[in-house]
């Protein structure tokens, strides 16, 4: 397959940076989340829960920036691929966006319902999204958990597809999200 300059055009530094920072934060936030729930009660546990919440709020904020950026900036031209792959990629991306917004939001609602407000970076107390409600907290905790595990599955598909494009199709799909110096392919 030959690549034209348009096809190797990068998403642009803002998108590339947002993508990888969010990816890293999701990986850390998920790992912390899965391990922290089984920690025995200790001051460290209280700290780790706080860190998990700060990571989640940061992901939510960055995801909102990303959605806003995407709505106002065109990406590089799409690479040629079969229709089913294009549809699958779209669906995966929609799910990724929906989950990276919904998971921190539901987590925030859960901690509000449980009666533990979020004080972001120990600096700003965020408003409670719902009132204290034990039964609702149990439900929201479950939803938060199910959505987070779902996201890990969607990410697995997303990563597998990127690696398949890179190593099997040998196209520029992954490079466009890694490239820092490639020309930006913003459409006029």
């Amino acid at each position: 397959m030959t690549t034209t300059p348009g096809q190797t055009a990068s998403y642009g530094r803002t998108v590339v940076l947002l993508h990888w920072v969010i990816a890293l934060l999701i990986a850390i936030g998920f790992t912390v989340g899965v391990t922290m729930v089984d920690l025995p009660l200790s001051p460290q546990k209280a700290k780790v829960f706080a860190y998990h919440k700060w990571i989640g709020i940061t992901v939510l904020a960055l995801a909102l920036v990303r959605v806003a950026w995407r709505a106002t900036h065109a990406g590089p031209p799409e690479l040629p691929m079969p229709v089913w792959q294009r549809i699958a990629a779209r669906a995966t991306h929609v799910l990724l966006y929906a989950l990276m917004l919904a998971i921190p939001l539901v987590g925030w609602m859960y901690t509000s319902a449980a009666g533990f407000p979020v004080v972001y970076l120990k600096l700003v107390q965020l408003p409670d999204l719902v009132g204290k409600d034990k039964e609702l907290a149990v439900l929201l905790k479950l939803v938060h958990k199910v959505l987070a595990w779902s996201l890990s599955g969607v990410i697995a598909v997303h990563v597998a597809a990127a690696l398949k494009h890179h190593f099997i199709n040998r196209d520029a799909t992954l490079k466009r999200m890694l490239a820092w110096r490639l020309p930006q392919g913003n459409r006029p």
Partner: protein
Amino acid sequence: MTLRSFRSVAGALGLVMSLSAIAAADRLIDPKSTFSATFTVEKVPVEAPFHKFSGHIDYDPANPTAAKGSLEVQTASLDIGSPDYNEEVQSKKWFDAAHFPKGTFVSTAVVAKGPGKLQATGNLALKGKTAPITVLITVSKAGALTQFDGAFDISRKAYGIDDPQWDDVLEDNVKVKFHLLQ
């Protein structure tokens, strides 16, 4: 009658009986009253209610400064929101609920502080230590009942409620809030 409906009827009867027992007691505060402690972990204020407390208030609107009140709170009834925290807070370094099951407040003097406001001084006894506290109380009508609202800060360490390994994340100051109906 199914077992389930028998249980709910029995439960309802039990509730009615306990409610009438409370109503029969002289000048006891209403069960809708609330009493809570707000402590701060990693700058996060966590308000935890005490589910069991009782008390009485003698209050005559015509002679407010003659008011008297006392309150008894079951330390083991503090509900932080999860079983492991609730168990931890009963342990020796915190409430030591096995030896000190109750915290009490008994007023010693009441001063009028403008319309609907009283300043009460009294003794707060907790975990074997007694110290005077002063609290501003707002008095208002709620239907047939009178409501007394107020809050005061205490140093938990002054009462020996302290596990130094938590010093890094847990603040010494605890805000106690009450909303009492009678």
